């Protein structure tokens, strides 16, 4: 071949390079590792792909690794509540390495997988933990698709999902081999704590001074559980926790101190050895808050009219609550009592107090309460158990006070007098409107006003012995009073009695 074309074979080689099958694995030193079942997020949040796990395990064996027995790995996972690789923390990795005698722990997640075999794609992220230190020492990620693997003349292209997956897994194993060959897994067995605080539960999170506070601690250890566990509750206060029912469980109880505020809790774990004792301190692992100040509470009534300092409503009253608190509100209660102090409505809810709530004047059985005055009480409790309460008298008024219309004679003039016999109208009436008609239906006069009692002079020379009256009045709450087609007789007439009559009920016709 002439020298000037010498680069052409090299070019062809480079072009075909991706198509060339992977070179046979160079067998590494027998490194023992544990492969956690591979997570597959395409299945669900906690999905696991056992088929790919087994496939990868076989490939790792070909590359000279010695994977731990799958059953043993799963047994460990079940015992230590490790559902997938995401739950594997540094301590559990160390424990796994110790129990299964591994040097490396592999946790992998499928980041891409195609369900369409014609357009395969696959991706895998691999985290490699050092079993000695429990830390992630290496991490690898490989992903590809058929379109990314296109080669000249389609030689060696992956034709299916299985082929592509195999190729990616081999690439990962090759990269892993490069990392591990000649490099012992980093990490020192002496580093790291020999335990992990799995749970540190403090109940309640908010307390009042003097009330009991409980704690439950669950500790997972590499060897034996600690001989003594104490909880440091204050600068000079330490409490020895008692062992619980299960191994590694400890619990204790003490009284909340008088000092308000957040109280951090630390742990002291002691292992007694023949020659020395090992002491580990976990600082400020949990906390609880002491609060003795009740929350401040006030209530504002909306959609109600203030009458003599009492909110009066007809359809519903909206309560706007204002409160300030140091700790969250845990529950609240609404109670309505009548004048005899009998509770007629009481409901308790847990959680946050809503900013707005409406009461339609119902009792506990959803019956409408009669008009009258009631005592409305709102109570709230914060998470520490401090209570705040606000009570207020409210009134239900669903009807406008009945008005009377009568005729009176003053000297020679005849007046029509509108009155509020209950004398409540002075403050409650908003407006009234009166239409007077002759017995034949002709309008005599029309008047409006805002105050009662009111006197309206009838036209001079009115001859008939009665007038037809239509009266409509509205109180300030919005209740309506109507008199329709009411006969008002002239003074001195036999039926000179102003009749108070509201609309007939339909049932009265029967």
């Amino acid at each position, binding site marked *: 071949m002439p020298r000037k074309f010498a680069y052409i074979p090299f070019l062809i080689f480079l072009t075909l390079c991706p198509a060339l099958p992977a070179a046979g694995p160079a067998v590494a030193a027998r490194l023992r590792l544990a492969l956690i079942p591979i997570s597959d997020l395409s299945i669900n949040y906690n999905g696991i792909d056992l088929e790919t796990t087994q496939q990868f395990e076989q490939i790792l064996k070909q590359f000279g690794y010695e994977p731990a027995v799958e059953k043993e790995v799963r047994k460990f996972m079940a015992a230590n509540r490790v559902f997938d*690789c995401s739950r594997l923390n540094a301590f559990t990795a160390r424990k796994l390495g110790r129990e299964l005698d591994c040097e490396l722990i592999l946790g992998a997640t499928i980041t891409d997988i195609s369900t369409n075999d014609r357009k395969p794609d696959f991706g895998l992220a691999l985290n490699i933990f050092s079993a000695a230190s429990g830390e992630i020492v290496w991490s690898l990620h490989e992903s590809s698709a058929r379109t990314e693997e296109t080669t000249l003349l389609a030689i060696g292209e992956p034709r299916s999902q299985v082929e592509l997956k195999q190729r990616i897994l081999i690439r990962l194993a090759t990269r892993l081999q490069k990392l591990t060959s000649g490099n012992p897994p980093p990490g020192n067995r002496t580093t790291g704590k020999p335990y992990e605080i799995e749970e540190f539960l403090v109940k309640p999170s908010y307390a009042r001074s003097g009330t009991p506070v409980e704690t439950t601690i669950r500790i997972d250890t590499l060897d034996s559980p600690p001989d003594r566990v104490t909880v440091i509750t204050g600068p000079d206060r330490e409490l020895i926790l008692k062992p619980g029912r299960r191994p590694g469980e400890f619990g204790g109880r003490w009284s909340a101190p008088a000092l308000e505020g957040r109280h951090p809790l630390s742990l002291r774990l002691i292992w007694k050895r023949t020659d020395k004792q090992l002491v580990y301190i976990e600082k400020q*692992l949990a906390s609880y808050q002491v609060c003795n100040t009740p929350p401040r509470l006030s209530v504002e009534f909306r959609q109600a009219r203030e009458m003599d300092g009492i909110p009066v409503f007809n359809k519903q009253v909206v309560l706007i609550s204002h409160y300030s608190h140091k700790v969250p509100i845990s529950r609240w209660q609404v109670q309505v009592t009548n004048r005899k102090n009998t509770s007629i409505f009481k409901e308790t809810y847990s959680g946050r107090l809503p900013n707005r709530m409406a009461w339609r004047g119902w009792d506990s059985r959803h019956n409408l309460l009669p008009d009258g005055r009631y005592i409305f009480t709102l109570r709230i409790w914060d998470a520490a158990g401090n209570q705040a309460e606000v009570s207020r008298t409210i009134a239900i008024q669903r009807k406008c006070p009945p008005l009377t219309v009568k005729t009176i004679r003053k000297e020679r003039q005849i007046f029509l007098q509108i009155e509020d016999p209950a004398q409540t109208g002075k403050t409650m009436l908003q407006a009234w409107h009166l239409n007077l008609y002759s017995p034949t239906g002709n309008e005599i006069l029309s008047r409006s006003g805002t105050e009662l009692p009111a006197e309206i002079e009838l036209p001079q020379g009115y001859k008939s012995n009665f007038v037809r009256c239509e009266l409509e009045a509205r109180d300030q709450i919005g209740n309506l009073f109507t008199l329709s087609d009411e006969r008002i007789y002239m003074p001195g007439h036999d039926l000179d009695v102003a009749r108070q009559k509201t609309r007939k009920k339909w049932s009265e016709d029967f």
Partner: protein
Amino acid sequence: MPRAGLSCHRHKFLPTLLLLFLFLPGGCGGRPAPITKTLTAEPPARICRVAVLPFSCSNGDPRLGLKAERIFFSELVQAHLFRVLPEGDIELFFYRNRILPGTAPGTDELRAMREQLEIDAVITGRINTIERSPNGPGYLISLELDLVDTVSGEKIAATFLRRQGSDYRKILHFGLITTVSGLLQQMARDIFQQWRLRGYGGC
């Protein structure tokens, strides 16, 4: 003689030029760098140990956020920028402190993380857009990545990046990325490379 000499010179450089044409990263020149804003005056060198929190996704798919988090986690370990805390330790911390998964930790929680997990910062991410690329095969992804200080709860750096698979095309199909994970991997590399240039990590 001079003609022959010139001809020989041309043949000598032709393969080199051809090779450069084929294998130079074509998209590299025109691709804009990630937009990174340094938000605090804190010296970045003191950040040694970090944790990657699950990413949030604008389409509300938590699995996509988790997938992105694991890819970024993997790339962060490979980049050797920081020492990265295993995901399981974060899970355990969230469980122990009764923080719901997916909840962004507040300042108090970040301080507790610092105390208990001995981390200097957390990396949070948000995928804003993920859709089929309008220009050819592959996907278009835009995301934000923040480095949050565990002492103050403030963002140390915020990076925004928008990429599509064809941005990485060199020539023909070479370099073209058609998978979501492949694109996220490249984006992670771009961001961490820029963080390195800005002086983050490496302690």
